């Protein structure tokens, strides 16, 4: 009994001592970064954090990631944390309506116009991009990367074998598709529901043109207008040349079909080029080729990951320092080559990027920029959630008029159309 008491007392002393030492050694500030960049994208985020820690050594950075599902899980966790009054210092969010329609209208984000002025970012971010990420009341996040959505990938060697050229318009695609089918090749590979929305937005951009496409998201073009019904009709005709088992394929598997020679073309964002170069070992230009998706030459459909400043975040000064780091030229040129995306700044150092990314950056700096639907730039989360249902209805019954009415109903209910 006596020995037991002595042992317990000794254990408690050691415990308290350890805690005291730990407490004394803890740095003054903390910074919690919430994202879904784990796995392949982890090294890029870690390089950015290393850069921040080099500049601000007294701050401990907590890298809080929630993996998987392209952010579905992370966004759910984020919502429960924000609703519970425990906001992270900064969180990854797609710049544009995904942020504005969820957090800005809920008055949870601070306006960053003063930061943009201080850092001189109005001169280095293109105007089209600034228009997409701000509202009348201000600018809400700092974009750290830009991905392009309207890219068509193919293997040049295979196309030569099959005797076709990359189509410049969807009419050209519909003309060459039957000959590809006769040779036992799927003309366009497709994956699960969100990749169908990804394809739809390229088709919509080419059919409507960038001006009417923008009108659609500003509520000036009705979803039941003949132009938009025409988009659904064209989309239905294109779908006839896709693989019937699309719903069970992930986007990687759809890209695999192109690399393996089972499919001719695939429309995907430029993370597919990172997947092909790094994971599949197919080199850009020598192994795979790319072109703007048919009918969208000269237009860059952009999506952007960004970080903002939540109202009531625990370490505001550290967060502002983080935002300055990620918006700086050094920060973006450290992060983006590793991530496989390009920097939103027009003064980015292109020598650090690979062949594909250099071509994308040249397009970004010269093209007209519009926003992506599937990736949260132009429509809020409620619209995207219900639009996924509209898309699945269309995939089942291929009725353009029904899809147009459903999309208009979704647009009204989610506040896109007043």
């Amino acid at each position, binding site marked *: 009994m006596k020995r037991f008491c002595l042992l317990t007392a000794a254990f408690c002393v050691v415990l308290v001592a350890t805690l005291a030492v730990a407490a004394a050694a803890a740095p003054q500030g903390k910074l919690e970064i919430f994202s879904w960049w784990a796995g392949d994208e982890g090294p890029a985020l870690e390089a950015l954090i290393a850069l921040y820690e080099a500049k601000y050594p007294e701050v401990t950075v907590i890298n809080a990631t929630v993996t998987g599902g392209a952010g579905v899980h992370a966004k759910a966790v984020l919502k429960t944390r924000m609703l519970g009054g425990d906001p992270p210092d900064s969180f990854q969010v797609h710049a544009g309506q995904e942020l504005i329609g969820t957090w800005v209208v809920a008055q949870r984000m601070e306006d960053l116009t003063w930061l943009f002025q201080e850092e001189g970012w109005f001169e280095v971010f293109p105007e089209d991009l600034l228009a997409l990420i701000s509202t009348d009341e201000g600018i809400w996040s700092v974009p750290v990367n830009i991905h392009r959505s309207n890219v068509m990938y193919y293997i040049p060697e295979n196309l030569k074998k099959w005797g076709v050229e990359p189509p410049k318009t969807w009419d050209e695609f519909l003309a060459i598709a039957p000959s590809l089918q006769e040779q036992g090749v799927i003309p366009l590979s497709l994956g699960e529901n969100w990749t169908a929305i990804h394809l739809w937005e390229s088709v919509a951009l080419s059919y409507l043109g960038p001006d009417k496409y923008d009108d659609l998201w500003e509520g000036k073009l009705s979803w039941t207008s003949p132009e938009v019904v025409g988009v659904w009709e064209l989309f239905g005709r294109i779908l006839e040349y896709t693989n019937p*088992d699309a719903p069970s394929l992930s986007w990687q598997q759809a890209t695999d079909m192109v690399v393996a020679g089972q499919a001719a073309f695939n429309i995907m964002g430029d993370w597919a080029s990172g997947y092909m170069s790094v994971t599949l070992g197919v080199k850009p230009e020598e192994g795979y080729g790319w072109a703007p998706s048919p009918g969208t030459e000269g237009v860059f459909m952009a999506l952007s990951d960004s970080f903002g400043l939540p109202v009531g975040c625990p370490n505001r000064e550290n967060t502002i320092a983080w935002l300055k780091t990620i918006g700086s030229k050094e920060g973006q040129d450290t992060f983006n080559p590793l991530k496989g995306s390009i920097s939103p700044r027009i003064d980015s150092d292109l020598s650090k990027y690979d062949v594909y990314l250099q071509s994308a950056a040249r397009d970004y700096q010269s093209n007209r920029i519009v926003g992506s639907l599937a990736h949260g730039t132009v429509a809020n989360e*409620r619209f995207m959630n219900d639009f996924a249902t*509209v898309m699945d209805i269309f995939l089942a019954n291929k009725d353009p008029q029904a899809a147009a009415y*459903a999309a208009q109903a*979704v647009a009204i209910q*989610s506040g896109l159309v007043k």
Partner: protein
Amino acid sequence: MHTRREHLAAIVTILPSIILLGIFVYGFIANSIYMSTTDWGQTAAMSLDPQIESVGLDNYRDLFTGFLNVRFRQDLVNMFFFTLLFVGLSLLVGLVLATIIDQLFWGETFFRTVFLYPMSLSMVVTGTIWRWILQPRGGINVLPTLIGLPPGKFLWLSSRDQRLVFDWSHLLHYACWVLLVVLAISAYSQWRQGKKGRLAWHLVICGVLAGLIASRVLTRLRLLPYPEMHGFNDALWGVVIAAVWQMSGYTMALYLAGLRTIPSELREAARVDGGSELQIYRYVDLPLLKPITASAIVILGHIALKIFDLIFAISSPDHYPTSMPAVTMFLKAFRGNELAVGSAIGVILFFIVSLLIVPYLIVSFRREE
């Protein structure tokens, strides 16, 4: 007899659990019901203090008759067919396996472990594995090529074919059909038991239902202003196979235990009376397994009604042919920011599951008394 002190001690011990249950279970159920009668923040659901206005039963009305909620109605149909197939097949496969294992001379422990093992996996793991196996491009469809036959053509989870297609507007009409079938089976069992009085009532109600169906009078009562076709999606077969693979070991273990507890005197007596093995199985064993069947139905039923993780893992979140109400609830609340609608779906699920559990509880409490 308990003394007053023991009685008090018992209450004090139980009180913390009751309080916690009261807050975290019943309190939150009440909160969800309240939330489902509001519009929770309208377009700004994530605010620190959202604008909340009461909308009564509008959310429910919209779920059942709203144009855009065709997905939710398909979910209900999917859930109904999935529950029927999953529970039925699990019971059947479990019974067959248990009967076979009961007869084995050796290897019983081995086979019992092998068949019970899938139950230890998380449904997410099951969903992921079966998603790969059921890919139309590889997996099961490649099996016939091993013996020289052409590869399978069924699209499994990607299939958009439907059978038993019906119009949601005429749902009451089809509900009559289901009721008729159930009552006919019940009437047959009453006839076998010789209960003439209850049989008469059953036949009267069957007659009324048959009359309603034949005259199609219920089709005048349209639940929706336009026709909306739903049916049994062929894609559900893949989900049913994965779920039965996981849970049939559980029913097998239940039935095996049940078969073992049947007193051998009953079987001996039946053999002495001249019954064959098959007759013994049918008239002695199976009736005594009824309580096990009932409890297995309740357990498997509530798993099937609330299923989420298997569906989320086995198919994409927006794939309607395999969607279920729990998945839609998650997406509506946490992806679409429509917290009130998510709560409404949750409350509907709660009522559907309690329709299954509450009668079972009532019957088992009555039996104890």
